[in-house]
């Protein structure tokens, strides 16, 4: 027996009631975008002139481009002149105590087991002196510096390491790449730079967690990770806690460069505001993520758990240039309410014996719509390239949607490309079965969903995997029943 839709919505629709308070400090540029705005951004960040020139070239190119409309997501068109492109990073916390924060949000933090000080930082509350993440970050940076690893903000990198930035920034995602990459290249606010020198294994998981109390990186984040020969690094981005954010449009660019025998693992947990029950006010997340396996035997692995945002448009990709290079993409994308996700990957095989693995798990509930869009391209020179794609969709309820758009282009006859896809539903039968064996409905749903996502969670660093499981359980709480 199916449940009445209204009832189903009721339980799936655990609202992420928010009430964003926008109280922006004076040092914010007025809305609008032109060359003066870009000059102002560059100036405020004390950037060298070559950087400004790059931004301007990107902007000029962006003006000639059209916003893409090929994806399966639908949203009102974005008014780029209505956005403010620079906010002072030193914003005053908007709330004085946790009492002022939405209790619903706090209960979510509680369920996720987030320490009280982190809760404050996330919710935009003034943080006690006890919680001094800057000093924590400093300690970490000291350890990293001893190993020779550079881990700093993009603004700092532009000032301190101009040669590295000139060499690598935009070398994987050039500003001409796509509309949102061009926009990002023109106006990016800040981001992260990681450089791991030859032969070094980064002594710790690098995480944006460390930067929780540092300057807000804003809506146009730029990340660059370079791993030199035989080096290894694992980078964790995001946070399981729903993040307060005033910016509706997010257009980040992430570039990874792996030289010979280098290994980069990039994990993301994204849980931004998805909008209210009617889908209003949620974040648009248009991200360009690409890794370049430049060296032979290099290895880049993307793992993502996407549960937030109103619209997600994201295709972390690998260019497998090196011989025997390896690209991996593991993804769980959850859409509920009116959320839409069009996500997937591109694996571009150029090097001989390059291999790629794609495991994509889409979960849709309520009116959520989930699309997998993936391209596997094998160039003529890529002898013996191999790809395996597995693409599974799980539906909860009867008004959600799942789509799969695999694109496969093979120009070398020795290539082996496999694509598997399944679509299944969390059925009332399954839930009854679990409950008849003594499990509560919530445990049953989370068991079925975790079972579905297992291959991806296995790829996450341990603590993150546990958090991701919790996150899924919370976001799909009482999903059916």
């Amino acid at each position, binding site marked *: 027996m199916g449940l009445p839709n209204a009832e189903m919505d009721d339980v799936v629709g655990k609202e992420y009631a928010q009430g964003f308070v926008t109280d922006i400090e004076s040092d914010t540029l007025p809305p609008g975008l032109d060359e003066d705005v870009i000059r102002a951004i560059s100036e405020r960040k004390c950037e060298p002139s070559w950087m400004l020139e790059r931004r301007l070239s990107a902007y000029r190119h962006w003006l000639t481009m059209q916003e893409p409309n090929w994806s399966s997501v639908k949203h009102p068109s974005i008014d780029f002149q209505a956005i403010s492109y620079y906010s002072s990073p030193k914003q005053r916390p908007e709330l004085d105590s946790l009492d002022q924060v939405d209790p619903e949000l706090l209960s979510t933090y509680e369920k996720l087991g987030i320490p009280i000080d982190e809760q404050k930082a996330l919710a935009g509350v003034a943080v006690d002196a006890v919680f001094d993440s800057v000093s924590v970050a400093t300690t970490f940076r000291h350890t990293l510096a001893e190993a020779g690893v550079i881990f700093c903000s993009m603004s700092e990198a532009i000032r301190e390491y101009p040669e590295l930035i000139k060499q690598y920034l935009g070398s994987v995602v050039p500003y001409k790449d796509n509309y949102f990459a061009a926009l990002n290249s023109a106006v990016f606010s800040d981001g992260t730079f990681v450089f791991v020198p030859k032969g070094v294994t980064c002594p710790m998981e690098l995480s944006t967690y460390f930067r929780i109390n540092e300057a807000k990186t804003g809506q146009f984040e730029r990340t660059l990770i370079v791993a030199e020969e035989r080096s290894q690094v694992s980078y964790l981005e995001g946070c399981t806690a729903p993040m307060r954010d005033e910016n509706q449009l997010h257009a980040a660019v992430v570039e990874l460069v792996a030289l010979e025998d280098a290994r980069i693992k990039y994990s993301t947990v994204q849980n931004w505001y998805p909008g209210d029950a009617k889908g209003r006010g949620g974040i648009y997340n248009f991200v360009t993520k690409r890794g370049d396996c430049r060296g032979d035997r290099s290895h880049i692995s993307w793992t993502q758990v996407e549960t937030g945002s109103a619209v997600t448009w994201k295709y972390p990709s690998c260019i497998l240039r090196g011989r025997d290079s390896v690209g991996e993409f593991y993804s769980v994308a959850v859409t509920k309410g009116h959320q839409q996700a069009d996500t997937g990957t591109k694996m571009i095989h150029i090097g001989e014996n390059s291999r790629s693995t794609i495991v994509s798990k889409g979960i849709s509930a309520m009116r959520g719509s989930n699309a997998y869009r993936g391209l596997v391209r094998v160039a003529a020179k890529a002898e013996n390239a191999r790809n395996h794609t597995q693409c599974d969709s799980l539906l909860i309820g009867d008004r959600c949607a799942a789509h799969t758009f695999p694109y496969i282009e093979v120009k070398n006859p020795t290539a082996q490309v496999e694509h598997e896809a399944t679509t299944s539903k969390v059925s009332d039968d399954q839930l009854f079965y679990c409950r008849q064996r*003594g499990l509560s409905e919530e445990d049953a749903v989370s068991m079925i969903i975790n079972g579905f996502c297992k291959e991806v969670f296995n790829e996450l660093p341990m603590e993150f995997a546990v958090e991701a499981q919790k996150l899924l359980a919370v976001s799909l709480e009482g999903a059916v029943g």
Partner: protein
Amino acid sequence: MLTIKNLTASVDGKEILKGIDLTVRAGEVHAIMGPNGSGKSTLAHILSGRDGYEVTGGEIVYKGQDLLSLETEVRAQAGIFLAMQYPVELPGVNNMTFLRESMNAIRRSRGEDEIDAVSFMKQVRKKAAQVKLDPKLLKRSVNAGFSGGEKKRNEILQMAMLEPYLAILDETDSGLDIDALRTVADGVNLLRSPERSMIVVTHYQRLLEYIEPDRVHVLVGGRIIRSGGKELALELEARGYSWLVEEAAA
């Protein structure tokens, strides 16, 4: 153990059960037989708390409690087990994990400690061997890609592990060949005990050759029209249901 009094129930407004009375004492095995569509599975589902059935009258008392007021999982925790006619597949959920989670949920509800991994493994291996379930299937996802017979054996394994007080077997014999039927019946017989009651719902008498019931009830048109000892099952096998239906109508 279980007392059903004048139970009436309907599905989508259509009356299926029209006044069932049944008493099952501890240690007894009752068989419920009847033609297709007589309400046998409905009764099994209502006992286990499946949604979609409207109980319009009567009561069910299980171990002194009003069964109808309990949630499905609470009934399971209280010792009611339904071996399903069509066991459900749970892709990605490891069979052993499922079994252990389920055992632990039941244990926790009774204030007992969770079972430790070593004793669990020992038990599950031993009991899987008893029902001749290929140990490889323990490592697979619950019922996913299992044959019909394997699914039924898996049900009996779960039953053996969960040790219910009231086990309801809904058409467990359907779709089984004679060897599988015998194995499943052996598994069930191993579980017979003075503390455990069973309700065996079946269409054919065949299963009752292996699982010997204390009482046999014939359910036709939503009513129990005849109850008797195990010889009733044999009579039904020889004469079919129609004579009983006619007698009841007369």
